[in-house]
């Protein structure tokens, strides 16, 4: 056990470097900012800022990008409570009771409980990552290629079934991503594939311009199509919760943290899923479920703790297995690969500064976030008054700078444009884009492991079911598939996404 504290201590020394502290602060600040502002989310922001982090040290880059992700969870609750607009998909449930509390003049309590609960969850999650991460890593190191293959199948299936929208179309998008991942030169045979004769495509599509087009620009365009709303903010009032409110929040925060950690580890899980699950649990456990939706503090405390724990726990599969649990993690894997770091269980030993530094930075980031969010709340509320027509231009600038920094080739710019159009079509056709980026990132790795597995087994496909670990992952994937195929399970899934 003392190992963990030693490692965390080492991580803290990594974070203490001025560049990294600044990065954590910048990430937390930007994260809060975009969390508060509806119309831009952490996924789009990370996609747009990715190219700007090239010049940075990989640890610094990841610390900042990670900060944006969990920072957005804090910011999202602010708008959810004050304005009844979820800044993030994970704050949707916070709107229910949080805004009800605001209308009763208890906005301050809601905000404080949300921030403090998130902080607690963030600290616990940091320790959880430090504990579970290495365990998972050592298990993963004993994986054979067939096991890895099945793990990736499980991750892709999980990402599809736990996501919203039509699973069949989401699968289609996964395959589109896998196909796009094969564009370029096949490493084993040296032949060019799907490159349309263009030498610039020999290295592949360029993950960053694809992400920028499909997440960054498409989101801007989607927001332009919606009409602007007038934003009415509730008064904040006292920032401290009453004694009874505080007491009532304790158990939900604990439960929310646990739920967040469990669901965050699961591929496809993360902040949003955790917050919905926590709300359902709190409602079912409450002595008077009728209070929910009308200002029950448990409906804020639990989900807010859960979404923070979930966001951080979703780093576990990333750091320990090298497998992204959701689209944002996929972007971070892309960032690592661009810096020449091969994701996988070996990161813990080859780049301990990255591993432990990133984990420790989450604790530091959470501390900064509580400070940023509570006292500065007035600032964030004022920002909500900025009309979208101006905000969008600012976002456009960052988008363009990012696009420029990415490339010295006009091809990358064309890729951004092509994928913006593709992203737009997917939006209109209701095809989820996150599964595609997962397929794109995992594709080359998946193919490589598949190839090795089949070479070892001399072409025998049954190798995937004869090895116990591999079989385990495939069974888990099948169980998830059953969730969507059988109607009884299907309605449960819908239930989680509708409000309770």
């Amino acid at each position, binding site marked *: 056990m003392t190992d963990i504290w030693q490692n965390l201590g080492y991580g803290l020394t990594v974070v203490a470097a001025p560049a990294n502290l600044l990065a954590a602060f910048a990430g937390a600040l930007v994260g809060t900012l975009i969390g508060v502002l509806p119309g831009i989310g952490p996924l789009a922001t990370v996609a747009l800022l990715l190219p700007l982090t090239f*010049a940075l040290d990989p640890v610094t880059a990841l610390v900042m990008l990670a900060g944006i992700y969990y920072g957005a969870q804090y910011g999202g609750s602010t708008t959810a409570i004050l304005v009844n607009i979820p800044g993030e998909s994970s704050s949707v449930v916070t709107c229910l009771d949080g805004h009800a509390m605001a209308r009763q003049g208890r906005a301050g309590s809601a905000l404080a409980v949300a921030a403090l609960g998130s902080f607690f969850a963030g600290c616990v999650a940091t320790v959880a990552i430090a504990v579970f991460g290495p365990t998972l890593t050592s298990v993963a190191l004993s994986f054979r290629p067939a096991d890895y293959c099945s793990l990736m199948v499980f991750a892709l299936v999980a990402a599809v079934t736990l996501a919203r929208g039509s699973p069949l179309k989401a699968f289609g998008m996964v395959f589109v991503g896998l*196909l796009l991942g094969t564009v370029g030169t096949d490493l084993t045979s040296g032949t060019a594939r799907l490159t349309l004769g263009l030498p610039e495509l020999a290295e592949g599509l360029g993950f960053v311009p694809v992400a920028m087009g499909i997440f960054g620009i498409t989101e801007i*365009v989607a927001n332009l199509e919606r009409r602007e709303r007038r934003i009415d903010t509730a008064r904040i009032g006292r920032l401290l919760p009453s004694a009874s409110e505080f007491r009532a929040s304790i158990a939900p925060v604990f439960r929310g943290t646990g739920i967040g950690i469990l669901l965050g580890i699961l591929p496809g899980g993360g902040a949003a899923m955790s917050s919905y699950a926590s709300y359902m649990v709190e409602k079912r456990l409450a002595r008077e479920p009728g209070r929910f939706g009308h200002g029950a503090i448990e409906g804020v405390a639990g989900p807010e703790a859960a979404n923070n724990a979930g966001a951080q726990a979703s780093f576990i599969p990333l750091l320990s297995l090298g497998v992204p649990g959701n689209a944002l993690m996929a972007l971070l894997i892309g960032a690592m690969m661009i810096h020449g770091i091969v994701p996988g269980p070996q990161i813990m030993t080859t780049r301990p500064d990255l591993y432990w530094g990133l984990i420790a930075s989450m604790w530091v980031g959470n501390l900064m976030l509580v400070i940023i969010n509570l006292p500065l709340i007035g600032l964030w509320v004022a920002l909500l008054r900025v009309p979208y027509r101006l905000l969008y231009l*600012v976002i456009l600038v960052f988008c363009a*700078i990012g696009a*420029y*920094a990415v490339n010295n080739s006009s091809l990358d710019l064309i890729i951004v444009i092509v994928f913006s159009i593709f992203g737009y079509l997917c939006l209109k*056709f209701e095809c989820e884009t996150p599964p595609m980026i997962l397929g794109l990132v995992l594709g080359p790795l998946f193919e490589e492991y598949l190839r090795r597995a089949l070479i070892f087994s*001399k072409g025998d496909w049954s190798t995937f079911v004869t090895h116990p670990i591999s079989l385990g992952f495939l069974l888990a994937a099948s169980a998830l598939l059953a969730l969507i195929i059988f109607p009884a399970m299907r309605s449960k899934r819908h239930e989680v996404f509708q409000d309770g």
Partner: protein
Amino acid sequence: MSKPDTMPSKDLCSGIMFVALGAAGLFLLAPLDHGSASRMGAGYFPTLICFALLAIGAAVGLRGISRTAARVQGMQLRPLLVVMAAILSFGLTVRPLGLAVALPLLLFVGALAIPRERWLEVALLAIAMTAFVALVFVVGLGLPIKVLPR
């Protein structure tokens, strides 16, 4: 009420998209060596993916043929085209002419996406953003972006 009904259904369009991608893939992969399971050639894996795409595309497309399927709606070309144009204009002008020209150009073209009359606002924002980017990204972070036309 009549407008949305004449649009094709979302699932049908998605299905066509998947089938098109799968078919295009198969076409482009045909000349490659596919190899066998025990010795996967360059074309093996992508071809499998293409077949999966064709199957999924067919399934989704068929689902979309029913009359009650959800229709594609709300396609507005203006925002998309304006954003594309803004980014393209930035991309084409930033290297020869520098930030001082490209960034305001980006903002003015981008501003066309929203019907507005407050061009002064846009002009002020252009000046502010150019200064900000020049200071933070070029001077501060050292990104190699030209600021003035030379």
